[in-house]
């Protein structure tokens, strides 16, 4: 896999400097956001609906360009990336989309395998890995089911498996537990915590679920009115 220099280990995984985002129709959603996610950190992002959580995440996984300000990923400025470098950088990031964004004409297996497939790998080389991951998220019986036939919670788990299959250095999850029962929600977050501890994956989770946040000893960022604040009332202080 191609890597983008510099990749100094003390560089934060994500660094936002004075980032603002203005949508044409809606106006300014984020204003002057400064944010650092250290490598190996585990962070929650919360805030009222419409506060701009998803928008902030989109900037981080390079789905949108900010209107102003700079975004550095793994120490690399992102505004001047070449097309190939952009693709290479995206392969280091796993994303769980709020609206799943599964490909309807593919099976659960094929959706999970997508990041490997677009990187040029063949099914023989990843078959076992994909099946193991699907079993782990409780979809062992649904491996070759087309995703539109899955329930909302099942689709969410497929999208989580897809975000993890590439062993990303940075995992960005937008409401990853919004459609699963509390038990499955906890199981998923425990997996994230384990990845964070064992592999050092940097994790950022946007969620409304305050109960879930309380169970984890992690910093919580609060977004409201386009501004970011560190929330000390929730979760344990760090």
């Amino acid at each position, binding site marked *: 896999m191609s890597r983008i220099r510099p990749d100094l280990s003390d560089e934060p995984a994500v660094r936002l400097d004075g980032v603002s985002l203005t949508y044409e129709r809606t106006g300014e959603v984020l204003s002057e956001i400064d944010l650092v996610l250290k490598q190996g950190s585990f962070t929650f992002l919360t805030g009222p609906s419409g506060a701009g959580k998803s928008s902030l995440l989109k900037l981080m*996984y*390079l*789905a*949108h*360009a900010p209107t102003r300000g700079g975004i550095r990923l793994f120490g690399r400025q992102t505004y001047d990336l070449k*097309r*190939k470098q*952009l*693709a*290479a950088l*995206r*392969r280091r990031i796993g*994303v769980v989309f709020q609206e799943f*964004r599964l*490909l*309807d*004409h*593919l*099976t659960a*297996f*094929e959706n999970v*395998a*997508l*990041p490997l*497939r*677009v*990187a*040029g790998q063949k*099914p023989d080389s990843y*078959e076992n890995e994909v099946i193991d991951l699907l079993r782990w998220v409780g979809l062992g019986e649904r491996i*070759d089911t087309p995703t539109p036939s899955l329930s909302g919670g099942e689709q969410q788990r497929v999208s989580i498996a*897809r975000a993890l299959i*590439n062993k990303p250095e940075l995992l960005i999850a937008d409401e990853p537990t919004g459609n699963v029962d509390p038990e499955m929600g906890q199981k998923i977050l425990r997996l994230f915590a384990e990845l964070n501890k064992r592999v050092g994956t940097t994790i950022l989770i946007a969620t409304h679920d305050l109960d879930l946040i309380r169970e984890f000893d992690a910093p919580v960022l609060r977004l409201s009115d386009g501004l970011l604040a560190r929330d000390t009332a929730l979760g344990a202080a760090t």
Partner: protein
Amino acid sequence: MSKRETPLLPVSDAREAALFFVVGALCFLAALAALTTRGTYKAAEAWGAQIEGDITVVMRDTDRRTAEQAAERVTALASVFEARVLSREEVEALLEPSLGPGGMPDGLPVPMLMVVQADTSVGDPSPSIEGVLDDLSIDGDVAGNAGYAENVRGALGVLRLVALSIVALLSATAVAVIAFATHAALLARRDIVDVLHLSGAEDRYIAGLFERRFWILALQAGLGGSVAALMVTALIVFTGSGSAGVEAQLLPRLSLDFWDIVILLVTPLMAGLAARFAARLTVLASLKDTL
């Protein structure tokens, strides 16, 4: 177990059926244009070469003996295949349209006519023929068809240009149609393209998906068009081969030889390549503006 590699671009039947038809029709027209042009060209070229080699010599106030003598000496020329003096009946037959049936009045002097088949590749034998006439003190005229053949050749040049323009126009149309279709498919499949991008797919990879899709579609459609052109040509060859005479000579002479088969095979290949080219350019150009 299945291969678990469903194509990443879903097949969209209605739109692709229409595109299939358009590309097939374009290939049909292109193949037919190429085939008929080639047929016409072959016919006209053979005809032109033939008339170019035909020389008519009119000899006045000469008896048949002297005329036959002249014919013998003309035949001996290097650039002449054959020279022959027409019989009185043949001359009368030639003059019939202007004199009416019943032949010539007996007392009228009939000119002697000698037809010469020249080998124009060696050179124009006209001056040598005139020399022979002078030697034998014959008052005569040598009339060749060189100027006429020149006109035929000019017309052939125009024909070739027209045919090339038609094929070029059809190719450009095919490229434009595919580019348009790629653009539409890209818009309709924006969701998929976005997910592929965010999953780390390079532009080349995404372009490759569209390229492969349209390459196969155009290849199949082009083959369909070619087969249709082949069938139409075969029909013309079969029904046309019965008629003989002047019309048959002037009609495009369609026959299927090696090069015609090459045309029929190359047409779908060209369509496929044009489709790949158009799809690639369209995808890469429109992805450039996305993040």
